[in-house]
C-alpha cells in the first residue's frame, strides 16, 4: 500500500494546529469545530487502519521509510503492527472525544486546542515511530503541551502538578536517552532503527542488557506508573482539566507498557527473563497497594487516578509473565483501561462542572436525581471493577490465567486486588448515588447530549470487547507471539 496513512494520522492534527492558529482567538466556535474536525480525520483513518490490518503476520505494516539524517543513520521510519494498531485507534478515539469534551473550555481557547492537537501529534508519533530518534522526539513533543495544559488550565495546585509531572517524566526520558545512545553505539553498523536493533539483540552481552534494560525501564516505569514512581499521577490527574486527565490516563500511561513491549522485551530478552520476578512483584504491589490507597480517597477524581495505578499493575503482571496469554492480557488491559478510565474521568468532569466539588462524601442519593448519569457511571465502575461481560474482566482474566502458571503465589495474592477494587467502587457508588438524596444538589442537571456522546462510544467498545474479544485477540496475537518468542526463544 502506497498511501502513507500513518504520516497522515500523525500530521493531520498538525495541520489542525496551523488552522487553529490562523483563526482569530475570538472565533471560539470555529476553533472548537476545527479542532474536532482535525481530530476526527485521524479517527476515520484509524478505522481504515483497522480494516486493512493483516492480522496473520507479525511483520510491520503500513511501513514508511525515508532517509532523514543519513550521517547519523536516522531514518523517518513509521510502521504499525498488532501492538500499535489498537493503540493508534485508541489514541485517535480518545483524542477526538476529548476534544469534544473540551468544548466547555472558555479560557484561552485557541491555545488550548493548539496544545491539544500538538499532544495528539506526539501520541500518534510515539505509537507509529520505529526509529529511536523519531520515537524520542515524539515522546518529548508530548511532554511540552501536557505541561502547559496542566499548568494553565488545571485546578488549584496546577503549577505544582505540572512541574512534578514534567520533572518526573523528564527524569525518565533522560535515562531513556542514555539507553538509546548505548544501543546506538553498540550496534554494528550504528543504527537507530528499532527493527534492526531487535534483530541484533541476541548479540548483546547479558551484563550490558541488564543495565540498559534498567535505563529504559525507568523511563517506562514512570509513565506507567510503576510503584514507587507513581506519585506524579494523582497530582497530575487531579489538577489537569477533564480532557487532559482522559488523555493522561487513557494514552500516556499506555506508553509505558507500550515501550516495555516494543523496546524492552524484544531488545533485551535476557534482561527481560532476568527481571521477570522483580517485575511481577512490582506489579503485585501496584495492584494491591493502588487498590488500598483508593479506599482512603475522599476525592472522586483522585480515587479514579489511583485506580489507574492498580489497573496498570495488571499490565505489568501480564508482561512479566512472558506468556502470550499474559502479554495479550496486558494489551487488552491497556485498551480496556483506556476506554474505562477515560470514560470515568469524563464522567467525573461532568459532575464537577455542575457541582464544583469532587468530594465523595458531599453527595448522596444522586440516583434519584440524575438516573442516566448514575447508570452510565455505574456501568463504567462495574467495568473497572472487572464485571464479566465488560472489557475489564476479560483483560484481568487473561492476565491472571497467563501469569498463573509462572507466578502462582503472586497471582493468588493479586486476585485480592479484585475484591478491594470492588469494595472501593461500591463504596463510592453507595456514598454518591445511593442513600437519601442530599437536597443540596436539587439544582443538579442531567448529563447533556454532548457529554453523553463522549462516553457512549467508549461504553459500546467496552461491552463489545467484553462480550466478544476475539477480533482484538486475533489482531494482536501474531505480533505478541513474535515478541514472546523473541524473549523466550
Amino acid at each position, binding site marked *: 500500500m502506497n498511501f502513507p496513512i500513518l504520516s497522515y494520522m500523525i500530521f493531520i492534527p498538525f495541520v489542525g494546529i496551523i488552522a487553529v492558529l490562523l483563526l482569530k482567538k475570538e472565533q471560539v466556535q470555529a476553533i472548537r469545530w476545527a479542532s474536532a474536525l482535525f481530530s476526527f480525520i485521524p479517527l476515520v483513518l484509524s478505522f481504515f487502519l483497522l480494516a486493512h490490518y493483516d492480522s496473520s503476520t507479525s511483520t510491520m505494516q503500513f511501513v514508511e521509510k525515508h532517509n532523514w539524517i543519513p550521517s547519523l543513520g536516522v531514518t523517518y521510519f513509521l510502521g504499525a503492527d498488532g501492538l500499535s494498531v489498537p493503540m493508534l485507534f485508541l489514541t485517535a478515539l480518545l483524542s477526538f472525544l476529548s476534544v469534544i469534551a473540551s468544548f466547555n473550555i472558555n479560557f484561552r481557547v485557541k491555545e488550548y486546542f493548539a496544545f491539544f492537537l500538538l499532544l495528539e501529534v506526539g501520541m500518534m508519533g510515539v505509537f507509529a515511530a520505529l526509529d529511536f530518534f523519531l520515537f524520542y522526539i515524539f515522546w518529548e513533543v508530548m511532554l511540552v503541551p501536557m505541561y502547559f495544559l496542566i499548568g494553565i488550565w488545571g485546578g488549584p495546585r496546577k503549577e505544582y502538578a505540572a512541574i512534578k509531572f514534567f*520533572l518526573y517524566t523528564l527524569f525518565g526520558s533522560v535515562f531513556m536517552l542514555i539507553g538509546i545512545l548505548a544501543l546506538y553505539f553498540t550496534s554494528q553498523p550504528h543504527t537507530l532503527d528499532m527493527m534492526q536493533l531487535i534483530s541484533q539483540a541476541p548479540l548483546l552481552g547479558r551484563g550490558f542488557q541488564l543495565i540498559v534494560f534498567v535505563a529504559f525501564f525507568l523511563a517506562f516505569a514512570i509513565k506507567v506508573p510503576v510503584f514507587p514512581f*507513581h506519585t506524579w499521577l494523582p497530582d497530575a490527574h487531579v489538577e489537569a482539566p477533564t480532557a487532559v486527565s482522559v488523555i493522561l490516563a487513557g494514552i500516556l500511561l499506555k506508553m509505558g507498557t507500550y515501550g516495555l513491549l516494543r523496546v524492552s522485551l524484544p531488545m533485551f530478552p535476557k534482561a527481560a527473563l532476568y527481571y521477570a520476578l522483580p517485575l511481577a512483584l512490582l506489579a503485585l504491589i501496584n495492584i494491591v497497594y493502588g487498590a488500598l490507597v483508593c479506599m*482512603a480517597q475522599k476525592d472522586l477524581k483522585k480515587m479514579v487516578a489511583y485506580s489507574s495505578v492498580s489497573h496498570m499493575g495488571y499490565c505489568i503482571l501480564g508482561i512479566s509473565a512472558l506468556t502470550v496469554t499474559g502479554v495479550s492480557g496486558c494489551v487488552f488491559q491497556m485498551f480496556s483501561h483506556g476506554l474505562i478510565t477515560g470514560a470515568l474521568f469524563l464522567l467525573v468532569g461532568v459532575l464537577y462542572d455542575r457541582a464544583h466539588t469532587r468530594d465523595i462524601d458531599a453527595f448522596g442519593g444522586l*440516583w434519584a436525581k440524575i438516573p442516566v448519569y448514575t447508570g452510565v457511571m455505574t456501568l463504567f465502575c462495574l467495568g473497572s471493577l472487572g*464485571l464479566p461481560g465488560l472489557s475489564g474482566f476479560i483483560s484481568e482474566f487473561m492476565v491472571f490465567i497467563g501469569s498463573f502458571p509462572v507466578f502462582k503465589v503472586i497471582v*493468588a495474592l493479586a486476585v485480592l486486588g*479484585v475484591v478491594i477494587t470492588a469494595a472501593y467502587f461500591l463504596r463510592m457508588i453507595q456514598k454518591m448515588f445511593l*442513600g437519601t438524596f442530599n437536597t443540596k444538589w436539587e439544582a443538579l442537571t442531567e448529563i447533556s447530549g454532548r457529554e453523553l456522546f463522549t462516553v457512549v462510544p467508549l461504553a459500546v467498545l467496552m461491552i463489545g470487547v467484553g462480550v466478544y474479544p476475539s477480533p482484538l485477540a486475533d489482531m494482536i496475537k501474531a505480533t505478541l507471539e513474535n515478541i514472546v518468542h523473541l524473549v523466550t526463544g
Partner: protein
Amino acid sequence: MLPYSWIIPCFPLLSFALIIFFTIKKPKLSSQISIGAVALSFIFSLIVLVSVLGNPVTSEFKFNWLDLPGFKVDAGMLIDPLTSVMLMVVTIVSMLVQIYSVGYMADDPRFARYFSFLSLFTFSMLGLVLSNSFFEIFIFWELVGLTSYLLIGFWFEKKTASDAGKKAFITTRTGDLAFLVGIFLLTTTVGTVNFQEAFHQVESGAISSGLLTLSAILIFGGAVGKSAQFPLHVWLPDAMEGPTPVSALIHAATMVAAGVYLVARLMSIYALSVPASLVVAIIGAFTAFLAASIALVQNDIKRVLAYSTISQLGYMIMALGLGGYTAGTFHLMTHASFKALLFLGAGSVIHAMHTNDIWEMGGLYVKMRTTAITFILGSLSLAGIFPLSGFWSKDEILLLAWNKNPIFAIVGMAVAFMTAFYMFRLCFIAFYGKARDQHKFDHAHESPKVMTVPLVILAFLSIFAGWVGIPWLSKGYSSFVYHHEVHHLEPNFILMIVATLVALSGIYLAYVIYYKKTISAEGLKNKFAPIHKLLYNKYYFDELYNAIIIRPIFKLADFLFKKFDQGVIDWLVNAAGNFTVFLSWFWELFDTYIVDGAVNGVGYVVRGTGAVIRRVQTGQLQNYAFIIFFGIVLIILLKVF
C-alpha cells in the same frame, strides 16, 4: 431443539434491553414484557426437559470464542438432566415471582427498573446453569452477583439496603477470589477451561491428587460465598433488605442455590478427592446447624427464613459432600419451591402488615386465609412432614448420611428438629393467637389475586414436586439425575419414622411454647440468657469481621495513603526537589562569585574595547559606504604593490 436452547436466556436479556432503553417510563408494559419473556423461556425450558427426559444424555454445543495459546475458550451450552431440571426451577420460580411482583411492587416508582433487573437476573441465572466451562460459569456467576447487588439495594434511599447490597457483593466476591484461584490452578494444570474436557483430564489423572484437592477446595470457596455457607454466610440475612419477591427468587430459590449447583456440576472432581469432599460435607453440616440455631431466636420474619435458607443450603452442600449428587440436587429443587412459597407468603404478610417483626403480627389466619394456609403448607414441607415434597428430599439426604457417616445423619436430625421448631414458632406467632398490634391488624387484608395465585401454585409444587423422588418409583428422580451410575439407596423405614418423629416433636414443642403457652417463652429465654444472647446476635460474626477484617483494611488503606504515599514517597520526591533547589541555590552563589567573576572579568575587557571601537559605528550609511570604498581601494593598492 437442544441446539437452539441458547434462546432460553435470550428472552430475558432482550426484555432487559427493551425495558432499559425503551419502556422505562411505562411500568405496566415493562412488567408485561418481562413476564412474557420469562414465560417464553419457561416454555422452551419445558421442551428441553421433555427432550432430555426422552433421551437423557449429556450434550454440548459450542463455538470458538477466544483462542490464545494456553487460553482457549469455547463458549456454548452443556445440557444434561441436571441442567434441564435447573432450567425448570429457575424459569418457574422467576415467572411466579414476577407475576407476584406486579402486585407487591405496584406502588413503587421504579417499577419498570425493577422488572428490568429481574429480567437481567433471570438471564444471568439461565446462562449460569447452561454454562459449559469454568470461564463461562464464572462470567454468569459474577453477573448474578451484580443483579443480586442491584436488587438488594433496590430501595437505595435506605442506608441499610445499600449497605446490604455492598456487603453481599463484596462478601461473595471474597469467595469468588478463592473460586478464581481454584479455576486458575485447575485449568492451567489440565490445560482447558471446558467442563467435560477438564473432567476427562482429571479422571485420566492429569492432575496430582494434592493439586486436585487444593483446587477443589478453592473452587468450593466460590460456592461458600454464593450459597452463604460458613464463614461467608453473613451477607444473606442482610440481603433481606431487598424487596421480598427478590428474596424469594434470588436469595432463596435460585441464586443462592448456584453454589450447590456448582458443586454438583463439578461432582466429577469432588468425587475424586476425598479430603475436598469431606471439607464440603463438614462446612455444609456445620452451616446447617449454625444457621438453624440462629433462626431459633430471630424476630424478623424474613431473617428467620434467611437463616433457614442458609441452613437448608448447608444441608444440600453436606449431601453433595457425601457424594449425594441426586440427593443434593433433589433437595435443591424441592427447597426452591417451598422456600419461594414461604418468602412470597412472608411478603404477603409484610404487604398487609407493613412490618417484618413477628411480634407485631398474630391471629392473621382469619384475615389472610390463603396466605396462612399456603404458608403453613410450605412450613410443613420444609419441616419434612410426610408426604410433602420436603419429606422425600430430606429423607434422601438423611438416608445417604446414615449410610455414609452416621455423625452427619445425627447433625441432620438435629437440624431437622430445629427447622420444624423455628418454622412453627413463626407460624404460631404470626397466624394464631391474639392480634398484638391492633391498629395494624385492623388494616390487614388478604393480598390481591395476582399475589395469591403464585402462592397457590407454589403450594401445589411444595406438596407434589417431591413425589418424583419417591424412592419406590422405578423411573423417579434418582434414575434421571445421577452422577456416573445410578446409586439406588435402599429406603430405610426406621429412619423415615425417626425423622418424622423428630420433626413432629419440633412442631409440638413450638405448639406448647407459642400456642398453648404451657411453657413460658420468656422463662426459657431467661434461663438460657447467655445462649439466647449469643444466638440472637448471630454469634457476633458481623462484629468479629468488622473488627478483624474491615476496620484493619480501612486503617491500612489510610496508612498507606496518608503515611506512605504522601508521607514517604512524596516526601522523598519533594525532598529530592528541595535538595535540588538547595543545590541550585548553592551553585548560584558559586556562579555569582567565581564563575561570574571570571566571566565578568572577560566581560570588562570586552566592554572596554567595545567602548572604544563602537565609535566607528555611527549608523550613518555614508560613513559605512566610505569605509567600504576606501577599504576596497586599500585592498587593491596592497594587492598591486
